[in-house]
């Protein structure tokens, strides 16, 4: 909480303004019963119509005034809380943008999304509640007690019984209700899970004609939820009636006691009526305040989760090696690099060394989960190695400003993430404000121009989140074109040709070769055919490089490579 309030700038003027307005509002609410008492004592009791009308006018005036004050305070409260939420969202989003892959892994994407969205909404709601109820209720309770004591102290002793009874009842019902709400939450998660499952598997379910079975499964959870929801609803519907009864009995007690004091002459009828109002105000305030307090733990938990994000610093630090002082260009060198993912017990890369020079293609092949992609992630400095050095253009990758380093690396990730928008916007990831000419050029190299031109809207055809309205192959070519847009010195392809047919694969490699000039290419591949003409092939197994050479050399020197080649190309071809 402290953490959040130290980062979010609230305007003191707004808060003190709100405080004043709430104070006015509390005083106004307190004045009304007093005027009512006066009206009864001086007007009604003495049957003076003019006095009654005068007090009625005063009360109407106060009512209108407090209407205006309330409206203003709602407005200010909403300004404060929306401003708070907007600042907080921006802080969290900006912070996450700076996170390296390690922090993303640490929190998990789903959890970060929750922290940036619904957690903030929850804290915002609590703040609104605090500003609107939390400020007013204590003032009302205090003022109510003072006024009540001043105008007819004896009857306020009813509160000594009423408040504890109210609090105990509230607590009991809330305990039951929250028990149900936890169960309800779990069952709702279950429904959502099943629904999401069906959603993700909708094509498979259709293909196997399993809609009925899926619906039956869903309906079971659905019915279960409905039963619990009904029980929870019934518990909560007890709350208001019970509270009302407590209020009613309190009123009756106040009137009864008051009648006694009126009889003994210790109290006037007017102040008795006023007192019954003061007392119900105190009770209302106590109840609202306890509600705020009950909601606090949940909101506090949310605030804590948000703070955790804000307190986390990216583990990757920026330096500022000037780009123009680089001793070499388009070279990647690994020197005895050992790397483990944060939290992993075993390193995924052990003692990896290799060099890739300008104009060369270095291919990496090996079984899945053996560390091929990790090599590529270290080049773009998504992670830092544990031991050893990654040299980019002759300088340790850690020395660069991240922005500089990534400006000359074209990365094509394994998961071809595209973003919602249109094709052009996605290509412009590689070059801000790219022109149609840039798009066409990049798309031609990536063999994407053809399919893009077939779209109705061409380069302005819509792309769905994740690019799901494109085929796997189209997505890969888009991701390649996006990287080509950068005109990088270093190309990094993470298994980026796997969804292409052989012909496109060959064509694309041909195009790249012709267009990249002095750039160096590092690619992870599954298909031997893709890497036949690479200048260097690294065979990775168990995090180590067990073979380094051309296709021909490796056939003789590396048994594992020979085995893969025989399986893929056939014994005779090898």
């Amino acid at each position, binding site marked *: 909480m402290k953490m959040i309030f130290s980062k979010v700038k609230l305007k003191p003027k707004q808060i003190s303004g709100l405080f004043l307005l709430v104070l006015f509002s509390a005083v106004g609410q307190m004045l009304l019963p007093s005027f009512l008492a006066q009206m009864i004592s001086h007007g009604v009791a003495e049957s003076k119509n003019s006095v009654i009308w005068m007090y009625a006018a005063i009360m109407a005036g106060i009512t209108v005034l407090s209407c205006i004050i309330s409206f203003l305070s709602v*407005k200010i409260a909403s300004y404060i809380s929306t401003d708070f939420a907007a600042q907080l969202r921006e802080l969290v989003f900006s912070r996450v943008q700076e996170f390296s892959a390690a922090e993303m892994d640490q929190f998990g994407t789903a959890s970060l999304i929750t922290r940036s969205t619904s957690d903030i909404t929850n804290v915002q709601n609590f703040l609104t509640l605090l500003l609107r109820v939390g400020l007013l209720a204590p003032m009302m309770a205090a003022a109510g007690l003072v006024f009540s004591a001043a105008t007819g102290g004896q009857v306020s002793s009813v509160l000594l019984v009423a408040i504890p009874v109210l609090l105990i009842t509230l607590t009991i019902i809330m305990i039951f209700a929250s028990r149900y709400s936890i169960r309800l939450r779990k069952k709702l998660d279950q429904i959502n899970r099943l629904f999401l499952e*069906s959603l993700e598997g909708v094509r498979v379910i259709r293909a196997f004609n399993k809609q009925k079975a*899926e619906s039956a499964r869903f309906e079971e959870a659905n019915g279960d*939820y409905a039963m619990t929801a*009904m029980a929870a609803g*019934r518990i909560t519907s007890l709350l208001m009636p019970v509270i009302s009864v407590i209020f009613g009995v309190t009123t009756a007690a106040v009137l009864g006691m008051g009648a006694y004091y009126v009889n003994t002459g210790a109290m006037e009828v007017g102040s008795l009526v006023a007192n019954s109002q003061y007392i119900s105000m105190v009770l*209302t305030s106590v109840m609202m305040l306890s509600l705020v307090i009950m*909601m606090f733990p949940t909101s506090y938990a949310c605030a804590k989760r948000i703070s955790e994000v804000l307190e986390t610093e990216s583990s990757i630090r920026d330096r500022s090696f000037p780009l123009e002082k680089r001793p070499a260009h388009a070279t990647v060198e690994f020197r005895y690099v050992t790397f483990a993912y944060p939290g992993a017990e075993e390193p995924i890369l052990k003692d990896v060394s290799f060099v890739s020079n300008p104009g060369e293609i270095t291919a990496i092949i090996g079984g899945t989960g053996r560390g091929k992609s990790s090599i590529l992630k270290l080049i773009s400095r998504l992670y830092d190695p544990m031991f050893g050095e990654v040299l980019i253009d002759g300088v340790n990758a850690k020395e660069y400003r991240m922005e500089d380093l990534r400006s000359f690396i074209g990365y094509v*990730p394994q998961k071809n993430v595209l973003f919602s928008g249109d094709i052009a916007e996605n290509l412009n990831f590689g070059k801000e404000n790219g022109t149609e000419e840039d798009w066409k050029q990049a798309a031609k190299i990536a063999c994407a121009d053809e399919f893009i031109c077939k779209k109705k809207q061409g380069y302005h055809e819509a792309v769905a989140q994740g690019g799901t309205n494109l085929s796997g192959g189209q997505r890969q070519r888009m991701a390649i074109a996006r990287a080509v847009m950068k005109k990088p010195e270093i190309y990094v392809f993470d298994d980026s040709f796997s969804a292409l047919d052989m012909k496109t694969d060959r064509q694309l490699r041909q195009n790249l070769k012709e267009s990249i000039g002095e750039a160096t290419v590092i690619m992870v591949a599954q298909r031997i055919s893709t890497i036949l003409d690479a200048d260097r092939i690294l065979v990775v197994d168990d995090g180590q490089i067990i073979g380094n050479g051309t296709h021909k050399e490796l056939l003789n020197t590396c048994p594992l490579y020979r085995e893969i080649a025989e399986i893929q190309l056939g014994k005779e071809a090898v």
Partner: protein
Amino acid sequence: MKNIRIFKRLLGYLKAYRLRLVLVLLAAVISTAFMVLAPFLVGKVTTTLFAGIADGVFYWETILWLLAALVALYFVSQLFSFLQGFGMAKITADVMQTIRREIDEKMHRLKLNYYDVHTHGDILSVITNDVDTINNTISQNLTAVVTQVTMAAGVMKASEKYYGEQQELLGKLNGYVEEMYNGQTVVQTFHYQERAKKEFARLNDALKTSSRKAETTAGAVSPITTRLCWNIPGVLRSRFLLLQEWQEALARQRQQEIAFSAFWMQKRRFRTASGV
């Protein structure tokens, strides 16, 4: 027009529970009628006290009877109020179950290309947020209609527009967050962070403006209705205050007001999808 259609559809769901609904509404009416009598009784007490002072005799018996009647009134009224809530819980749970089932079945019938252009999060939010919202509306509004006879209708209409807008903007913002976080690798390697922050700031600002409008219009309802009841003596007034601030405290009011637009959005999504 569209609101009427939605309302009709919502009524369609309630049709099967006609008898139950009538009983629930009857309970609400009885409860309210008894509550209305309370200030009348309190007034009687004061009158009796005045009469006692004027006559120089103290009418203990009358006062005690009146107070006993007051307590009894509360008990009876709140018993019916509880019965109403009790019955309503069953109806809402059932209707929600039906709506969820229909959405699930619809999901299996929709044209597949619907799933190409909608994110999972977007569709999922139909069954989570939107259905939840309707839930709150049915369980609270129906009750509120009878007990409150609220003059908030006009303001509701005004804020409904903003709430719809706010909900849409919130969805957009959350969608953007989800997308950028999921694509973090690409965002980082293409140094898209600054551009992402800019776009986020734009969405964030729009949401802020919209929710201010919505909160202010909706917030105006409660103080006004509360204040209008000022001159209704003690007990009833505090009950009004109670009811309204209570609802606010649970932050449900906002949901009530977006319910119709949310429901409409859900329907629109599925209608366009199925090409009806």
